[in-house]
């Protein structure tokens, strides 16, 4: 359990370092993700500890969004004055963004 967390944190740290000094355009955690992916691919399997910690984190991803999302209270006046635009943009866009890939896959995918 702890060793899985340590490994993931090490990749996060490596990602932050690379982002800071070499690739400022890409956020550190994304580079960490790619590095961990490369490590898993090289090992050809997911170490059990990493799997356990990784699965737990991903399973409760929703919780981790909460502190940032509560920031909505800061923008309430601005959101209210742009209410219709924001609501329509978010709802229509998410419907289209679900529908388009689903349609593309239905058309392009052939049964195996």
């Amino acid at each position, binding site marked *: 359990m702890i060793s899985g967390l340590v490994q*993931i*944190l090490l*990749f*996060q740290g490596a990602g932050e370092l690379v982002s800071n000094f070499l690739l400022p*355009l890409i*956020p550190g*955690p*994304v580079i*960490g*993700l*790619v590095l*961990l*992916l490369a490590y*898993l*691919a090289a090992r050809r399997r*997911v170490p059990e500890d990493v*799997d356990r910690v*990784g*699965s737990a*984190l*991903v399973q*409760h*991803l*929703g*919780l*981790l*969004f*909460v*502190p*940032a*999302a*509560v*920031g*909505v*209270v800061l*923008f309430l006046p*601005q*959101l209210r004055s*742009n209410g*219709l*635009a*924001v609501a329509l*943009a*978010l*709802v*229509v*866009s*998410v419907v*289209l*963004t*679900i*529908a*388009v*890939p*689903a349609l*593309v*896959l*239905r058309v*392009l*995918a052939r049964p195996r």
Partner: protein
Amino acid sequence: MITIHEIWVYLSGSPLLALILTLGAYQLGVLAYERAARNPLANPVLITVTLIAVTITLIGMPYAEYFEGAQFVHFLLGTATVALAVPIYNGLGALRGRVVPLFVALVCGGAVSIASAVGIAALLGADGTILGALWAKSVTAPIAMGVAERIGISPTLTAVFAVSTGILGAMLARFVLDAVGSKAWWQRGFALGVASHGIGTSRAFSVSEEAGTYAGLAMGLHGIAGAVLIPLAFRMAS
């Protein structure tokens, strides 16, 4: 004699209160979701955020103070992003023979997401801050916030839009996917992951393991692609 006021002053000065509030509200959110038989409309994150926003407004706790305690939870978002490598790696085998359709679907979905959101908001006269924060909203929140910082947009507002998109996608996906006649779990999951990242992925996992794997794959690929392409596209557009 210790008064309630003293206890309150002590508690609100430590990160503990915000942490208990965050985890406790989430527990209630998940409980409500389970009670509602995992109905997509009873989205646990929406319930949690609403509970906390109402609570801190009622007790007069400024957001900055709340975040100071809740940042320990927030910090793990970066760690969880790295950990996405695990579901992506597990999903890579499933990619075989489907690489081209999945990539076409991802690129189309990402482009449609930005064009439709920014287009509609601009047509309806939303201001520049709002428009900018819509760019990265279909990318998972930690990456979206990183992208927003890099293009000079408010990371908090971007996160709010990203989470709203995640919640809306998780709530509406079943109806949209049924309407367009999508049947295979892997296709339904992938479409949901492209549109509504982490929250969509949790939703997909709670319905089907296969859908969850593909949703995680879509979220990860969209995150990586978005981190590179959105800042470039934003600079070209502005």
